[in-house]
């Protein structure tokens, strides 16, 4: 992957941010909470530690190349789907359609991305899985809550397989003058989305007062949203020279993906509320589950993919 110099720069920058964050976290703990009992500071430090792990994992995948990136996101899809389907309505009659979701639909979707078969991977889950999986459930006969069961399963597949797979799908775009550097699209997208999440959290903690959706999430404030989205856009746009976009185009893209990321957090919070859970899972210390960390990427990735494909791709 020839995005190497830019990729190294971006990863180096992220490492610097994390070093700084780690220092701040340790100073806060030493100054305010030497006993380690303040939940906010402990959670902050757990989050920072988990960030190191996530960045390391992503770096390894980038180094491994296209196969590594596709494999990593297939595994993330698996972990996300496991979290999502743990909460949805199901019946023993759905056993084979659920198993097919994990062991047929998911691998096929990523295999199609590996083959670069755009015509099929962009409709595979929304058309073929959508029509065929309910047939499997229907053939097993139980009709109780049938629509709820098949609809929730389809939602899980759209969110956890279809949407997440659009991150590695960015590698298949052919942008004139940007050949061999597609990995930067992924690195830049994830950087901007996650930076926006972090900055929304920071701005919200510092000056957040008016809640955007008090019924959904007590931590999402207008101050956090505006401050976070604008500052992430500013930083993301300043890296336009790593992307195929001009400065203004990069700023526009940043606005779209930070907003989509925010909406992703909002919608996924609504689902958590509906299902009566606080987090999607427990495997990422400090953050919760995989979907808790990926919700904004899930909503931003397909839109970013299609905007980039429509305006910049040759095919």
């Amino acid at each position: 992957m020839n995005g190497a110099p830019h990729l190294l720069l971006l990863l180096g920058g992220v490492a610097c941010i994390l070093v700084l964050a780690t220092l701040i976290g340790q100073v806060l703990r030493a100054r305010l909470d030497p006993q380690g009992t303040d939940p906010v500071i402990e959670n902050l430090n757990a989050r920072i530690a988990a960030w190191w792990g996530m960045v390391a994992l992503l770096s390894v995948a980038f180094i491994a190349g296209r196969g590594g990136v596709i494999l990593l996101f297939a595994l993330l899809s698996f972990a996300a789907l496991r979290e999502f389907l743990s909460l949805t309505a199901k019946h023993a009659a759905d056993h084979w359609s659920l198993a097919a979701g994990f062991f047929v639909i998911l691998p096929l979707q990523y295999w199609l991305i590996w083959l670069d078969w755009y015509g099929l991977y962009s409709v595979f889950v929304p058309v073929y899985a959508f029509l065929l999986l309910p047939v499997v459930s229907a053939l097993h006969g139980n009709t109780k809550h049938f629509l709820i069961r098949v609809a929730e399963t389809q939602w899980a597949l759209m969110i956890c397989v279809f949407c997440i797979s659009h991150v590695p799908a960015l590698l298949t775009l052919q942008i004139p003058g940007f050949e061999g550097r597609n990995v930067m699209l992924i690195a830049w997208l994830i950087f901007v989305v996650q930076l926006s999440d972090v900055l929304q959290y920071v701005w919200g903690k510092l000056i957040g007062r008016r809640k955007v959706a008090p019924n959904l999430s007590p931590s999402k404030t207008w101050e956090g949203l505006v401050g976070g989205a604008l500052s992430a856009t500013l930083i993301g746009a300043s890296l336009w020279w790593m992307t195929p976009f001009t400065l203004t185009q990069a700023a526009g893209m940043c606005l779209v993906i930070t907003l989509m990321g925010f909406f992703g957090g909002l919608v996924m919070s609504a689902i958590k509320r509906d299902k009566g859970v606080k987090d999607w899972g427990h495997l990422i210390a400090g953050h919760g589950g995989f979907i808790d960390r990926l919700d904004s990427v899930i909503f931003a990735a397909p839109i970013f993919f299609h905007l980039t494909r429509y305006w910049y791709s040759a095919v």
Partner: protein
Amino acid sequence: MEGVKAALRSAAALATGKAITLFARFVTAPRALWQGIEPTYAQRVYFANHSSNGDFVLIWTVLPAALRARTRPVAALDYWLKSPLRAFIGREVFNAVLIDRRPEERTEDPVAQMAAALDEGSSLILFPEGGRNSGETPLLPFKSGLYHLARMRPNVDLVPVWISNLNHVMPKGKVVPVPLICTLTFGAALRLDPNESKEAFLARASSSLLALSGEAA
């Protein structure tokens, strides 16, 4: 020669055990909630709801290694001795206390076997429903084994463990598991009161387990 063979067997058992716990973690990402008791070493009888053959594997997986090494599942002899592979897994890997469910054919009393395992210092994993529950009711009526064991060894803590979601992961008769997250909730320990009747004790044990499911009214 015999020594080498035995060492190989126990190494194979260790590796198989590791592989099974890794697989269980991959499929169900099991999470232990120590709600009423801490995961410290003490002799215990863990009793849990039973909806799948994976049940004791999950309890075994989430126990800290030091506890796991001294915890033996109580399992059905007719199931676990059916093939050489099952026998190897049941005996060598899980070191199960194999009991005969057929009263007319058995030569050993199951409760005496469990008590003997406790006397050797082991903890036990027990499914008091007797068989797998594949119906809609969350918990089947308990068999009396738990009561008789509690009467024979009244100083051992009985710990209820509620296993959620596993009935969806691996319903009875299915071979392909659906990977879903399972939660194991460990409740507060209970013991038999000196004057408690069998029915009262079993009802109390059953409701203490059901209370952990979050489904109890």
